[in-house]
């Protein structure tokens, strides 16, 4: 079961990696990196479940949080050229 879930994660990670390398626009790549982060969050949670160590969920939450903030920051930087403005 664990192996099947891990294989599904690996396959989707490879697909997303292909999109990061081939990506036509910057925003495709940003979205792909965000998806890769989500897959890694799933991987961390899976490992925590398999190793009977629920503390890994904390790490998964932090990873998801940093992933979200990083994506927002990158998108703002690309769309406005600076992190300073107020998105109006």
């Amino acid at each position: 079961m664990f192996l099947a879930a891990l294989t599904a994660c690996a396959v989707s990670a490879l697909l997303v990696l292909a999109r990061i390398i081939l990506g036509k626009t910057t925003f495709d790549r940003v979205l792909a990196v965000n998806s890769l982060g989500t897959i890694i969050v799933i991987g961390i949670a899976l490992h925590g479940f398999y190793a009977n160590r629920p503390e890994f969920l904390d790490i998964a939450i932090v990873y998801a949080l940093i992933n979200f903030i990083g994506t927002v920051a990158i998108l703002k930087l690309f769309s406005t050229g600076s992190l300073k403005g107020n998105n109006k």
Partner: protein
Amino acid sequence: MDKNPILRIATKILFAPIILFGLYVQFHGDFGPGGGFQAGVIVASAFILYAIVFGLEKGKELFPLNINLFLLALGGILYGGVGIVSMLLGDEFLSYNVLGSSKQAGQHIGILLVEFGVGLTVSNVMIALFYAFVDFKSSNGETK
């Protein structure tokens, strides 16, 4: 005015839970993964997210630079202060055993205070770095 309503509302919803999670990591550090450094970064990420989404001015309104620098120094003073207090109570620098009524209580109080100082300093250093880099002026004076 509101160009990105999803982002703004998501930030407003997430802001308090992020800080709560930071406090959980801070005070749960004795039993699981976590501690001052990680908690500091998590708490700082809440303020950085706010400043990214609502703009640097609003971020500095929420968390002014002078309070930021004051708390930055306070964390270091708290860390060193615990060491000095344990010296004044007749043991070595940062020896927690003399801080409480028993050895266990002393260790508990000492670790809690020192980790709190570390968390305070790390979170405020992160926010100060963010403010400094976002406000960065290039050498010919124009803001990027």
